[in-house]
């Protein structure tokens, strides 16, 4: 699956789609692939504050629990409630319909430090080499 050129990416396998000080956040195709069949998603409520590096929710597959760490600080404006009933959307459309939360960023400039699509693709390719030795 292609990694959208306009997104920014974290080493913890989240993506951010930033427009002004608003960011949509999700997990990457690589992350959903590593997790396997997603069966459960737990997300904050609108109005909650998220803080860079702190967990703001969890995604669970049949065999694994994964914390989702905030790639930036801000206030949650909207939560993708569809995922409660259809968590498997994360497997089928991780960069689109399966966005997790929309956030008003505290510091929109901070996201420039995150990886762009080519850098993220290089990062996961490198990771893949480490584990398939």
């Amino acid at each position, binding site marked *: 699956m292609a990694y959208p050129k306009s997104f920014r990416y974290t080493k*913890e396998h989240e993506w951010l789609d930033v427009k002004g000080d608003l960011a949509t956040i999700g997990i990457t195709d690589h*992350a959903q692939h590593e997790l*396997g069949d997603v069966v459960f998603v737990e997300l904050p409520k609108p109005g909650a504050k998220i803080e860079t590096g702190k967990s703001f929710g969890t*995604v669970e597959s049949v065999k694994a629990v994964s914390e*989702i760490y905030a790639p930036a600080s801000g206030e949650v404006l909207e939560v993708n409630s569809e995922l409660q009933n259809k968590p498997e959307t994360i497997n089928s459309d991780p960069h689109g319909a399966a966005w997790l939360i929309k956030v008003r960023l505290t510091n929109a400039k901070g996201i420039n430090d995150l990886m762009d699509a080519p850098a993220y693709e290089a990062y996961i390719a490198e990771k893949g080499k480490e584990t398939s030795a």
Partner: protein
Amino acid sequence: MLLSVSARTMGTDSSTISPVSALRKTPLNALHRRLGAKMVNFGGWDMPVEYPSSGGPLSGGLIAEHKAVRGSVGVFDVSHMGDIRIHSGKRPGGALAAVQHIAMNDASKLAIGQAQYSAMLYPEGTFVDDVIVHRLGEDDYLLVINAGTREKDVNWVRENTKGFDCVVDDLSDAYTQLAIQGPRAAEVVQKLTDANLSTIKNYWFTHGTVCGLKNTLVARTGYTGEDGFEIYVPSDVPTSERVWNQVIEAGRGFGIIPCGLGARNTLRLESKMALYGHEISEKINVCEAGLDRYFKMEKGDFIGRAALERAKAAGVMRTLVGLEMIDRGIARDEYCCCNEAGERIGVVTSGSPSPTLGKNIALAYVPPALSAIGTVLFVEIRGQKCKAQVVATPFYKRQKKAASPQAAGGN
């Protein structure tokens, strides 16, 4: 997000995590990697946890693999399991006496060609390992043991059979073991063998020609709660890959897919089969695990017997129950069970979504007073008390054909 938490819930011993190069490999390791399987460290073995979901005819993924076994047929590489043969020394009878001494079930009840669920115990009545004992011949037995406990088990058997007139052979590396499991498994395996499988009952076995390999052990056993067979073929890579491919070919019309340890875990959990290091261990005794029916006091002395007599008389402090989550949330291995007040009352040994039932299920140790079906208790999930209730087990029971008794434990 953190992608490394999966290991523990798969029964992997996180204390033994070692570099990939140090992990042990089955003869089918290269094949699994060619298939694109996701590999994990399972008890020191580099094993497939699930195969890729390509959307094609052999498309996997844990849930698809689980459903293939419940609905039709799937094949597992279980060559990491160990095999110990105990046979006669100078005079017949020594092997049976040795097996009776080290394993809790009554092996004297086995006919040649029959197998039974059993366990090797410490003097405290807790588990060295659970095993399947097969009677191969007049005074000739094969114990199939768990992967993570191989060396410990072999040492234990050698040490504790010294006083008996028997020979102990560790055959663990001699076999590639494939499990073909599911309601259509018999039809698939029948295409590959001259043995008449319809005459083999559950927990019986035969020797026949399989994929052209003479004298191959074919057992109607498994760890999925479905009908199925386990076959034991020579462990060289070409033979192992050839047999695997022939099984896949024979199963093509039935929708067979390769299945990983992820599905093996959810299948055995739904069927309430114990997993070493989880429901059973060196700290848990047979009565607590609810496996009382597999130890036979009338057969005479065996290691652990005295402790089990005491445990039976004294009653247990904790007992294994099945839980179904009422609140949203998935109970996972090692999560705490608590009461309404938030006080710790027990622990989850295995927990997962159940692909067959569409519910979140778990096995847990709780005090006997809280073990009645319908009892409501709580599982602490990331700091939240989530409501669960005690339910009847096994969570899933297959529709049985006549005359096929099923063991509740397994390897």
